């Protein structure tokens, strides 16, 4: 008996070996010629590795491994930053930041070392309105970067800009790329070829829809990363990713919230679960300018009708806790509690009756077409049905929902209610920016217009007094809730599972991976 030249004896030993590997999934982090390899799941295809154009957190993960900023978010439990390219960085005045670069940090590809010219180039290209980059608001207060020496410079702001230290400098928009490399190749926008790297890793192979392999940057002089190679494997489907994890194909993956409850009860062998509050915010909103919702009493009735705990139970399986606003706990401006804390159906019915809708009315809840949203909307609709409001759930592709709700031409009034999630950086201004009057017809789908809110948003980014900022942002969330247009739901959670042979290094919300700080257990 022969299987294509494979003897029976041979076949049996091979099969036994395969069986052995299969029964001990993922313990072989060290494999393949003695290289230490970390295999992580990439949940989206890679499209743009440009600091000014990046699309998702997957792009961020790769960019942080191949480039560095002056400073970087510190992995761990608390939001904070640490120095990277900067050997020294000081806020000299509210509008002046002086920095000193470490000397002799080389660019790959023979583009010399990292200089203050590179810093100036990297930040000013994002700030330049002519370039129309997606992240230009991160640098909108930048006046210029002065180069005072090969390794020193000063960042000048037009006015004080507090988010700089939390969501600009340590994040993607603060990364430094090589001016010489960009000019030598004559490129305006980086896609998947990063040209020159200065970080701990470089790209070995790049198949944007299948796998991205990073290997050590041989020129790297800093702390040596524990893993020789990072395999970032593209698996779009969450169920498939979980199966891949159990089969030992990957060592780390983020999880859908639906899986958390099950995994909390029973974890696969030799693995660990991470559940962290997210910074993002979910809310149920209603447009305030058309139909029944023009009347603030109708909006307040909705606020009193929605059983938020039940919505969270249905959409997040009890894993997520209720939000008190759009700014997550632990951040400046977090509000201790909601104004409307418990559902009050009698009050809601009375408000509806006063507004002239004693028998309720028909409307729609627009949501993104994914499980958490659709589940949340169904429970919300059940809550509303109890006071007579018949809300039909309308799932959309995210683009289609934005096109309708953010339609300047008037499509917005086709939808009464919506449930939305916005992502968030650690500075509170990132949350309030979308609800100013200017954003009506863009992202302010509630068409919430409040002069005090607009004024506070404008002044608080330049406010140096932390206490005043804290109180200001709390006040802004009160204003939102008082308008009747908002029911704050949750910040959600970020969940991930990893092999117990790996110690991950993640941002405090568990969203971002710092691969050079991942370590074997």
């Amino acid at each position, binding site marked *: 008996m022969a299987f294509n030249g494979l003897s029976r004896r041979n076949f049996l030993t091979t099969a036994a070996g395969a069986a052995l590997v299969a029964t001990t999934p993922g313990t072989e982090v060290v494999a393949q010629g003695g290289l230490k390899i970390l295999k992580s799941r990439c949940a989206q295809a890679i499209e743009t590795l440009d600091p000014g154009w990046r699309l998702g957190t997957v792009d961020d993960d790769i960019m942080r491994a191949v480039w560095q900023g002056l400073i970087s978010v510190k992995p761990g439990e608390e939001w904070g930053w640490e120095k990277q390219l900067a050997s020294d960085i000081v806020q000299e005045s509210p509008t002046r930041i002086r920095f000193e670069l470490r000397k002799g940090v080389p660019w790959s590809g023979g583009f010399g070392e990292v200089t203050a010219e590179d810093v100036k180039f990297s930040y000013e290209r994002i700030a330049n309105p002519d370039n129309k980059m997606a992240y230009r608001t991160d640098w909108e207060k930048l006046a210029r970067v002065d180069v005072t020496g090969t390794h020193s410079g000063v960042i000048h702001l037009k006015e004080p800009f507090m988010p700089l230290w939390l969501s600009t400098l340590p994040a993607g928009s603060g990364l430094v790329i090589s001016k010489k490399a960009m000019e030598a190749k004559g490129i305006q926008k980086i896609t998947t070829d990063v040209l020159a790297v200065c970080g701990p890793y470089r790209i070995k192979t790049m198949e944007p829809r299948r796998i991205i392999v990073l290997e050590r940057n041989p020129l790297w002089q800093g702390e040596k990363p524990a893993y020789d190679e990072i395999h970032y494997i593209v698996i779009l489907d969450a169920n498939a990713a979980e199966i891949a994890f159990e089969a030992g194909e990957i060592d780390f993956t983020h999880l859908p919230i639906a899986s958390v409850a099950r995994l909390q009860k029973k974890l696969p062998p030799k693995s660990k679960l991470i559940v962290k509050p997210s910074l993002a915010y979910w809310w149920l909103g209603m447009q305030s300018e058309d139909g029944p919702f023009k009347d603030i009493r109708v909006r307040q009735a909705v606020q009193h009708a929605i059983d938020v705990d039940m919505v969270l139970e*249905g959409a997040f399986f009890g894993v997520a806790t209720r939000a008190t606003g759009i700014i997550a706990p632990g951040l400046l401006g977090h509000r201790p509690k909601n104004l409307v804390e418990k559902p009050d159906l009698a009050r809601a019915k009375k408000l509806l009756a006063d507004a002239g809708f004693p028998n309720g009315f028909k409307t729609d809840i627009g949501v993104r077409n994914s499980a958490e949203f659709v589940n949340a909307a169904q429970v919300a609709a059940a809550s509303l049905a109890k006071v007579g409001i018949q809300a039909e759930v309308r799932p959309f592709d995210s683009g289609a929902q934005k096109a309708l709700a953010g339609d300047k031409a008037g499509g917005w009034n086709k939808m009464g209610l919506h449930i939305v999630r916005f992502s968030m950086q650690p500075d509170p201004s990132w949350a309030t920016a979308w609800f100013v009057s200017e954003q009506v017809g863009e992202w302010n789908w509630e068409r919430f217009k409040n002069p005090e809110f607009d004024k506070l948003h404008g002044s608080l980014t330049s406010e140096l007094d932390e206490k005043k900022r804290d109180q200001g942002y709390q006040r802004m969330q009160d204003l939102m809730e008082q308008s009747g247009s908002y029911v704050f739901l949750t910040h959600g959670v970020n969940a991930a599972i990893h092999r117990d042979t790996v110690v991950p290094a993640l941002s405090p919300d568990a969203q971002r991976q710092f691969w050079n700080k991942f370590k074997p257990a």
Partner: protein
Amino acid sequence: MTTADAALATPLPAERAWLIVVRRLLADPLGTLGLTIVVLLVISALSADWLATHDPFELAPRQRMQDPSPDHWLGTDQLGRDVFSRVIYGGRIALWVSLTAVSLSLFGGLVLGMLAGYGPRWLDNALVLLFDSVRSFPTIMFALAMVTLLGPSLGTIITVIVVASIPVYGRIVRIQTLSLKETEFVLAERALGAGPIRVLFSHILPNVIGPLLILASMEIPVVITIEAGLSFLGLGVRPPTPTWGSILQEGYQYIRDTPWLVIAGGLPLILTTLGFTFLGEALRDAFDPKLNRP
């Protein structure tokens, strides 16, 4: 009279064509199976209110994802709703959507096909062009476009299916009308003073409707599958309306927690498709005069 003539002229026992068809159908085991499944489906759809053990819309998030039990025969879904009841009501919707869509497209196909086949040349050319352009557009792309425009709902699904399948019926009716128009009995009718309306409805329609009804019974499972497919893609009926496609889709999301949800949504879909297909094929054979069986 010749003897052959006399033999044929002797009146035979009064037999209706459909009696022969039913007898032939019951002689075919697959046809009987198909008929049984379809009849059961119709009964369960009509009596959903009595058969369902729970309100299919009743939410109980804290009782989510329970295993099958005497109270919940097929367990509960991610929002704690009774899956068995949702499957029963899903059957009602599947049947309603498919019957509505098929009869509307049958009607549309008949009218347009007869117009094309019997009407003036320019109208024929225009309608054939219309049929061909609709057919050349992939149904699912068309569905995506329509859902984006109109939003997902039962009405949108039915519209999509009707628009996409009118050409299927229309082309068949047109071809049949074209050939029937040339037959001597149509000419004979016209020679006896029948106008176009009378020719179309009294003479062409009865000749076309039989094959068309068989085609329609074969189209019903296709429509149910399209509806399920669209619901699975999240483009179908709006939640919380229970449909087999959306039960399947939700089941797939939580397949690692509640694998029976996928079975609960998938099995009736498979059975119904098989049932209608068996029935349609058996009907086609039963109506086929060339297969000369008892």
